[in-house]
């Protein structure tokens, strides 16, 4: 069984090898869309439901792709093991929220324009990343992991603390909302569709009315259209981040990063101030994590519950699936993780509920009630228990753990990580004219 899975992953990886990255991503997108359209049809969704499913998949894939790309810069390129992803995300979101929510809401913000808020959030996350990287200059891998994890918990506990629920600085009142969280500014995509994007009850603009009218006729409601438009916009942001990181990776700066990963002493001996490079990488990567988190939560609620260490582990699993060191792999990993591992189990649950008649109120409350009927060969109660809402969430995390162990044991390089670019700018495996000398 295991050998067969091994052959399977190897075959998939080999197949990936022969294709260009663009074709690969296209095939992946088409494949995932086809899969989830199929599942939606099985569930009997109408067009609105199908589009909504695809919206959610696209949205989560884009967010995780961005987070994984940022983490890949730190771990894949530079070898810095940052377990504080969730903390830097929180810094981005909360800073944006405190800068841009209206002073009249509870908790109050400064009411600055959204672009300033987003820029401020990204810069704050980057700055905090730079500060947090100072220990990174001294510590070896596992210490760094523990320190960054502790750091992210300090950030989370600080935002959660009642002390900062509302506070004032220089006469301006601000707040994080403590354990209840803070509501964030409305989604900027509303500017496309509404006359007054800030107001929830705003009438649609002329363009919005035309678009909504067209889709309404097909059975896709306005919020779904809005969400899909936002998810598509996020794909462009992912493309932007991808291009940025590829340019960084191929620049002289990026070659130093790879050199640090391969052998820091050598990089240092060649006259590179490796510490400065690490600080810059932390700042850039954490800034991007802040950006991804802002785009994730905007238009909704910022809550410290979203920034528990488990969020960091999600990003790591996604990176390991894709393969550390490869930007295309990061995008693949983000999409595969978000759609199959993160959302997949919920769809399995829905499909099973559709086809197995459990009966209303018949779901067992305890494992005993679920396992007991097995004696009379009745598996329905166990199935019902397994696919209940809370237990699917628990089993999803068990699955995540098992996948993580399986990958790290059998395919630590992930789907695309074996293509890790070398530190040299020219291909050292072929030495043109080497024999002539």
């Amino acid at each position, binding site marked *: 069984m295991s050998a067969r899975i091994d052959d399977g992953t190897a075959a998939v990886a080999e197949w990936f090898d022969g294709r260009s990255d663009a074709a690969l991503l296209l095939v992946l997108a088409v494949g995932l869309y086809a899969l989830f359209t199929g599942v939606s049809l099985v569930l009997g969704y109408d067009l609105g439901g199908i589009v909504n499913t695809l919206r959610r998949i696209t949205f989560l894939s884009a967010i995780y792709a961005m987070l994984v790309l940022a983490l890949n810069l730190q771990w894949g390129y530079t070898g810095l*093991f940052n377990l504080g992803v969730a903390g830097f995300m929180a810094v981005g979101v909360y800073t944006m929220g405190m800068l841009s929510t209206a002073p009249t809401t509870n908790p109050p913000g400064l009411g600055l324009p959204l672009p300033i808020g987003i820029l401020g959030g990204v810069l704050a996350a980057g700055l905090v990343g730079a500060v947090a990287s*100072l*220990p990174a200059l*001294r*510590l070896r*891998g*596992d*210490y760094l*992991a*523990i*320190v960054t*994890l*502790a*750091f992210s*918990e*300090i950030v989370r*506990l*600080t935002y*959660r*603390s*009642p*002390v900062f629920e509302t506070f004032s600085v220089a006469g301006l009142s601000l707040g994080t909302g403590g354990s209840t969280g803070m509501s964030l500014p409305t989604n900027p995509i509303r500017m496309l569709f509404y006359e007054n994007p800030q107001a929830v009850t705003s009438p649609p603009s002329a363009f919005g009315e035309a678009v909504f009218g067209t889709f309404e006729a097909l059975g896709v409601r306005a919020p779904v259209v809005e969400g899909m438009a936002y998810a598509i916009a996020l794909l462009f942001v992912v493309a932007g981040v991808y291009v940025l990181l590829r340019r960084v990776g191929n620049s002289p700066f990026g070659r130093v990063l790879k050199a640090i990963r391969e052998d820091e002493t050598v990089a240092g001996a060649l006259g590179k101030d490796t510490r400065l490079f690490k600080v810059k990488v932390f700042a850039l990567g954490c800034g991007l994590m802040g950006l991804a988190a802002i785009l994730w939560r905007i238009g909704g609620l910022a809550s410290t519950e979203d920034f528990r260490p488990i969020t960091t*582990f999600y990003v*790591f699993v996604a990176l*390991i699936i894709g393969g550390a060191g490869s930007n295309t792999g990061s995008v693949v990993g983000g999409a595969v993780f978000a759609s199959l591992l993160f959302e997949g189990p919920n769809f399995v649950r829905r499909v099973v509920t559709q086809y197995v008649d459990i009966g209303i109120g018949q779901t067992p409350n*305890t*494992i*005993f009630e679920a396992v007991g009927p097995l004696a009379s060969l009745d598996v329905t109660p166990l199935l019902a228990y397994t696919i209940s809402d*809370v*237990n699917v969430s*628990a*089993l999803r*995390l*068990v699955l*995540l*753990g*098992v*996948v*993580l*162990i399986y990958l*790290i*044991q059998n395919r*630590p390089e992930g789907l695309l990580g074996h293509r890790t670019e070398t530190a040299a700018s020219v291909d050292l495996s072929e030495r043109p004219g080497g024999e002539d000398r």
Partner: protein
Amino acid sequence: MATSTETNTVVAFVRERAALIALGLFLAFLVADLFRKLGTGALTAASLAGFVKDGTVLGLSLGLAGIGLAMTYSILNFANFAHGDYITVGGVVGWITAFLVAGSGSANVEQLVLLRASSRTLGISVTTAPVAIVLGLIVSVVVTAGLALLIDRLVFRPMRGQRGIALLIASVGVALAVRYLLVFVLQTGPRGLTAGQVTPSWDLPVGGGTVTVTAHELTLAVLAVALMLGTHVLLRYTTFGTAMRAMADNEDLAQVSGIPTERVIRTTWLLGAGLTGAAGFLIALERGALTTSFGWQLLLLVFAAVILGGIGSVYGAMVGGLVIGLASRLSVVWLPESFIIAAAFVVMIVMLLVRPKGLLGGVTTV
């Protein structure tokens, strides 16, 4: 000339230890401020003693929970993120046993196994149900050790010799799988374990007020110290202890000297995880309640204790535990209560910056 050289030496000394000196000054300031607060009556002696007691109890819990982590860290060279969930497993299986023993006949078995039976009705405490407590402790040790061996066989053994980071990632996978399997079986939500009304406690008079010490705090403290001393004797005076220390220093050298490294690793897991299980059981006893994630929530503090003491040092884990416990509880004197945990993490980070080898750095495994 001579004076200038001397000045240079002093300057160099200060520069080299700037961080350490700054830290020392900061600590001195805190101590002075503490006395000022005691003097002005902003802080009573009784509440200070209460903080110190709470800190000591937390510190001993962390130290006890940290020994197992320090042992595997020194032998296998990786930070085991599943350690927190071994603590939880110890607490859960131990308390299921204690519930079954104490409640047999009087309560529904399913309710007992799921830890849902009313702790008030069961009335467990060290004095009212000593047999249940002792059996629970034994089962927690045995089951946690067995689980650690099984996981080592399935997950870590195939990865021997790999980098610490790869093992760390695998241990995160183990942590998730173990914790959420427990959630699948038990469901979430806190469980009350002991009955407060039958637990003996003593009010000790301190400077005009009183400090309450419960029998369960005392049990934890006594057993923690005893287990730590036992571990020390074991590591210091037995062949296994020598072999383990040799492996921690240099695994290849140990192997060519004829030390059966695989067997030492197994024994280390057995011993380390056994202690961890006991720690989980005793911490749950002292707190009187548990959740399926209490070990995970303790993990970072345990790491803090182990790192503070110097990774791989068993004494270090104890000293580090006490420092972290006291620092986090005493932080309440200056900081709002919501920063108790954060304060402990700050202490760990500062410590890593100032003295990366830990308080007892340089000493390994002894």
